[in-house]
């Protein structure tokens, strides 16, 4: 993971920084599914982020995607319980993010296997100035370089 340090808004001190990481759907699923191949690594990474003081957020898109996957594979009861336990701050995707992600796909300047969700999330990260990502999806991580 790379480190990002956007300033704390209106903190009055330019030296104050906030360590922020975006949590994508694959990380949410890997944490929730104790049998997933990446579960142990994801739990370790999550604990590292928390103990290092990172503030975590996801998006409505990633949360919805994770819920769909958990519901399909772990069952609806597990998905309902998971959703109730998730206390992560959710960023609402803006129309501009959707449009930028869509352009990246349509105009072919995204990675060949990028999904619309991937390119939208790249737009969000770019706009918020966040470069630290907690993900286990190899294709998405490859896009981030």
């Amino acid at each position, binding site marked *: 993971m790379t480190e990002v340090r956007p300033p*704390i808004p209106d903190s009055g001190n330019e030296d104050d920084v906030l360590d922020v990481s975006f949590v994508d759907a694959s990380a949410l699923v890997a944490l929730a*599914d104790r049998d997933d191949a990446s579960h142990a690594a994801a739990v370790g990474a*999550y604990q590292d982020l928390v103990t290092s003081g990172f503030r975590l*957020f996801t998006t409505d898109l990633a949360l919805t995607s994770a819920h769909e996957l958990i519901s399909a594979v772990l069952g609806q009861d597990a998905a309902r319980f998971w959703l109730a336990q998730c206390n992560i701050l959710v960023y609402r995707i803006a129309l501009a993010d959707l449009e930028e992600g869509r352009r990246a796909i349509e105009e072919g300047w995204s990675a060949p296997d990028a999904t619309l969700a991937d390119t939208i999330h790249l737009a969000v990260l770019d706009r918020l100035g966040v470069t630290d990502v907690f993900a286990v999806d190899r294709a998405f991580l490859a896009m981030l370089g």
Partner: protein
Amino acid sequence: MVGNELADDLMTVAETARLLRRSTEQVRRYLREGELPGRRLGGQWFIDREDAETFARQRRDGTEFLRRLASSDPDPLREAIAIGGSGGADIAGGRARYLRSLAEDAPG
């Protein structure tokens, strides 16, 4: 250079800087890097008012979100870990591969 009607819809770099509460140099940087759409007329940058207002609103939303994030739960997923088991899926391979674990588990 531009008609009055068109000029009403265009903002100078200085006007945009005041709207965004940023320096004129910062606004020029947004323009150069393509973050803020603009056009060059007679060697000067001009910004469509609608683009400038949209940009300002997006930055306010981002700033507000980071402010909320600073005071958010520092351990927000502690109760959302290991809530179920797939029997051996692999989300690192993508959505399709993760969902494939269902088919592999299915009888027959």
